[in-house]
């Protein structure tokens, strides 16, 4: 079908060519344009770095989602203190007896010193926690930024002024310091300091503080985009035909904002992963016994002089994940906007 028509024409994706040709010659000749989205997808598929990064990132997400399944097949969990329960795994000082941090066919990534937990399950569960929190923050931030950015840009006037000033104010906060200072306060609002803070509350607090100082960049970007888009004549054309503001935002503006939204959120997610890990490292994130990627670095930092191997796997995993995700973000941007690259 494609060869018989013009070169710029492609069949509907996923539809077998034979059925269209067989059904009706007139239908077969129908010209289907490639949408900007389809063009983006074609460009993305050609970018080898992007595709490989996408696979790597996908792998991490699969591991995070399937962590319980993997742990079950592997036969261990991140909570059991294997080293303390079974003699012969840890020496008198609490460090693994076997070389390389206790790596063996049974404990693939070794055993954690002192408590003697399994490093492999801790890592996959830690990735699960961190990615889950980062994903939740990204979604919350993106939705907020879309709402505030588009209303500021489209409504203008007073709304724009107030959203703009709030943005300025929040942007002036030193984010990391703010997180460290506010995390205990947020948890103290809900739980009295004497009681044990439930894990879900810590998670909610982590998401809330990161969301609170995370939305401004994207919101400001979207406001600018809307400001330039709403001067375009196709918005006026829609208004001349009597379209409501809601319809203009939904049908005319939003499709044109998909690119910045997608690109920015892809670049945003790894920063939230590192921020969450940083908070756990500093001790204001999740606490024991919840497995957490960031806290593995904290433990690794305490014991690295005696057991360097412990730090190895979480560290390498984090580096690969961040690099792959950033490369993916770059590739998505290049695919959407080939003119901006190179």
């Amino acid at each position: 079908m494609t060869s018989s028509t013009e070169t710029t024409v492609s069949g509907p994706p996923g539809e077998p060519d034979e059925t269209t040709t067989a059904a009706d010659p007139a239908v077969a000749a129908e010209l289907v344009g490639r949408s900007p989205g389809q063009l983006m997808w074609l460009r993305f598929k050609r970018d080898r770095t992007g595709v490989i990064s996408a696979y790597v990132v996908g792998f991490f997400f699969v591991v995070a989602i399937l962590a319980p399944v993997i742990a079950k097949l592997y036969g261990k969990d991140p909570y059991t203190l294997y080293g303390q329960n079974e003699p012969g795994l840890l020496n008198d000082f609490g460090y693994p007896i076997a070389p390389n941090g206790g790596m063996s066919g049974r404990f693939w990534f070794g055993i954690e010193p002192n408590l003697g937990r399994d490093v492999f399950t801790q890592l996959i569960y830690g990735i699960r926690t961190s990615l889950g929190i980062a994903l939740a923050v990204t979604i919350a931030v993106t939705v907020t930024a879309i709402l505030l950015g588009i209303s500021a840009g489209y409504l203008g006037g007073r709304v724009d002024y107030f959203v703009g000033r709030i943005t300025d104010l929040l942007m002036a906060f030193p984010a990391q310091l703010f997180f460290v200072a506010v995390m205990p306060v947020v948890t103290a609002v809900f739980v009295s300091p004497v009681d044990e803070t439930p894990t879900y509350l810590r998670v909610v607090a982590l998401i809330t503080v990161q969301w609170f100082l995370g939305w401004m960049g994207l919101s400001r970007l979207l406001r600018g985009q809307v400001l330039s888009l709403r001067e375009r004549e196709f918005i006026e054309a829609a208004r001349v035909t009597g379209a409501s503001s809601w319809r203009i935002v939904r049908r005319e503006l939003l499709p044109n904002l998909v690119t910045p939204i997608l690109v920015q959120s892809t670049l945003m997610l790894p920063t939230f992963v590192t921020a969450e890990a940083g908070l756990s490292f500093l001790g204001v994130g999740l606490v024991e016994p919840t497995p957490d990627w960031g806290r593995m670095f904290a433990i690794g930092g305490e014991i690295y002089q005696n057991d360097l191997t412990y730090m190895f796997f979480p560290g390498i995993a984090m580096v690969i994940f961040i690099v792959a995700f950033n490369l993916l973000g770059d590739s998505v941007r290049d695919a959407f906007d080939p003119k901006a690259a190179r």
Partner: protein
Amino acid sequence: MSNDISLSKAPAAAAAGEPAGETLLQVSGLTKHFPVMGGFPFKRQVGTVQAVDGIDLTVRAAESFGLVGESGCGKSTTGRLITRLLEPTAGTVSYRGQDISHATRKELAPVRSEIQMIFQDPYSSLNPRQTVGTIIGGPMEINGINPPGGREKRVRELLETVGLNPEHFNRFPHEFSGGQRQRIGVARALALEPRLIVADEPVSALDVSIQAQVVNLLQQVQREMGIAFLFIAHDLAIVRHFSQRVAVMYLGKIVEVGDRDSIYQRPRHPYTHALLSAVPEVELEGEERERERIRLAGDVPSPINPPSGCRFRTRCWKAADKCAVEEPPLIRLAGAEEGHLTACHFPEEPTIAARDEDIVMDPALAALEDVSDRPQ
């Protein structure tokens, strides 16, 4: 792109043979002032841009009315006021007797389908993320129009009407050339079967070769569907080709209005003379120049602070004290045809023939010509 287009479906109104000359659009005293904000820390109004300042015009059914003038004279603002993309500061816009100057979106709904607009820039007037089918079908969807045979069939008909392949239905704007895009814009305007189309410089962004095609398309649409046009342009030749009546605007005011031949052959206002004289014309070798030659100096004054009295007086060669004090009314001068109105205290002779002496106001151009005259 073939130029013979078939109009498969003419609106019933045109087919019924509506009495020609019925007033469709009546604009009186239309004014739009844009505030100029400034100051720190509190912004306040420091001036107004008098983009459109009290203009009157009438567009009759099935008529093409041209609006010409220099850049920044308020032509486009006028068009946007009439389609109610902007709200007038003062004055009224009435469509078939109904005052729509301050109507809300809901009140405008029944009129919306009858007044449509064609935009200047075909690259920014089509949403890059929508297919041609969505773009042209959108107006029908918004207004809840369900033509017999479905919207898609109607869109295909419209594509055929404007000389595009109906199979371009699923394509995206970036796959088309400027001329084709403008045809899509025309199809969108026709989708609601309007009775008045405001065409805001519809061809000035196109190649000259394409301009003729699009203008012919518009003319065909206008004649065969009986749609009235308010044709805004700065190209006098195209307006002459397209419009039966023409108004000349200068700095937010109409300075002269009349029938096409009357304006182009027997202009009275000095500014109209100057505009017509500025149109380039091919002169064959040995042929005597028979048109008058007027070269103005300087730019259009700022609409923030327009000159008192007659707004053209700062660039006019006939300006006198009276012009600074008294604003000339737009009236029918002695000897002018019916409907030919001019706003000038000292009108020119109704001819465009060459004068004894060229009027060259531009000092640089005058100096150049002095030098070239010397050896003779």
